[in-house]
């Protein structure tokens, strides 16, 4: 895919009411699963929703949303539409086996292009699935995109919380409101109804209390989440009456409420013409 045009400094997205980043410090905590199911849950609540996969190096959204083709960007109208969600991902324009061996400026260009050169139309929420860490993709988005807030995903164990704290600190430093913390893979309920806390207990809640941000809930481990994600039909869409889907609907409701509350903190800075 040829590099997009010149880099824009400040992105205006007049048709998009709220831009919500789903982030974590650490990889493998289920950001893409949470972002995908949160987007679908917001859609189930009647909102118009887009999902942007900002993980340029390892996009997961195509497989989770059941898009296995690679499209020619010269002849394809992006964003795609799946299950009522508008979608964009690097995985739609490069083959899954292609390694994107890029430095930061290229990541910056493509993320900016995904935000500005794609007609997202009228959306209530654009959910952005961020890659792990506090690097180029995160900086580009916090500097250029009109972010309403960020949802931090963590798993309960300390090794994940350490990195989640760094993610939180990054958003604090760049003054993006943290909507709250979601604890993913919180527990597993076995066939006999017993609850197993495989990765420990209460880490996400503890981090929320320490940092003074809302705790948005616990999402259990469930083989159905994996099966649905791998088959391209996320659990909120495939099994909307399942307890997990209901957890995601509560999460979507809480995110909507918190975004409304934090809209003042995310107000644009004043400008000056010289």
């Amino acid at each position, binding site marked *: 895919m040829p590099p997009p045009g010149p880099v824009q400094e*400040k992105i205006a997205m007049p048709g998009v009411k709220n831009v919500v980043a789903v982030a974590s410090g650490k990889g493998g905590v289920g950001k893409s699963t949470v972002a995908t199911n949160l987007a679908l849950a917001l859609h189930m609540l009647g909102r118009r929703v887009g999902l942007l996969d900002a993980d340029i190096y390892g996009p997961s959204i195509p497989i989770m949303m059941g898009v296995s083709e690679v499209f020619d960007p010269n002849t394809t109208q992006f964003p795609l539409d799946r299950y009522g969600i508008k979608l964009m991902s690097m995985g739609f324009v490069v083959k899954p086996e292609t390694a994107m061996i890029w430095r930061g400026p290229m990541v910056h260009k493509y993320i900016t292009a995904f935000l500005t050169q794609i007609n997202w139309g009228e959306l209530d929420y654009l959910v952005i699935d961020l890659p792990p860490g506090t690097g180029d993709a995160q900086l580009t988005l916090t*500097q250029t995109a009109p972010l309403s807030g960020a949802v931090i995903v963590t798993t309960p164990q300390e090794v994940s919380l350490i990195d989640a704290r760094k993610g939180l600190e990054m958003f604090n430093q760049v*003054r*993006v409101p943290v909507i709250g913390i979601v604890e993913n893979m919180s527990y597993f309920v076995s066939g006999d109804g017993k609850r197993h806390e495989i990765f420990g207990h209460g880490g996400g809640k503890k981090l929320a209390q320490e940092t003074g941000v809302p705790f948005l809930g616990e999402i259990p481990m469930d083989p159905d989440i994996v099966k649905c994600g791998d088959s391209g039909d996320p659990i909120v869409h495939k099994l909307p009456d399942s307890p997990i889907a209901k957890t995601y609907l509560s999460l979507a409701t809480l995110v909507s409420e918190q975004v409304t509350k934090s809209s003042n903190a995310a107000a644009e800075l004043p400008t000056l013409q010289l």
Partner: protein
Amino acid sequence: MPVADLRPVALKKDGDDRLTIEWSDGHRSSYLWTHLRSHCPCAGCKGEHEQPPDPFRILKPTELEPLKPVSISPIGHYAYKIVWSDGHDSGLFTLEHLRALCQCPDCVKKKP
């Protein structure tokens, strides 16, 4: 109000040589543009500040003209970027940094 909660409510040009920022706590900061440039937080300027001056540095033609700001624009929710007449544009002035650089008589008195 903690500095992290402060935000500018208005930016104004004060003559040719000054910038004024009105903050959410009612404070009014005043800066000479040259003061801001000499406290540019970019890596290049910070590195330059920490090194002894190079006596053999050759000035560019734009450096001989009086330095002035060309534009000042917000970066995300947390900083401003100033583009200068000599083309320098890599400094992101965070809100905390701008507040700390305030040159109003009250703030100047409080500085050690």
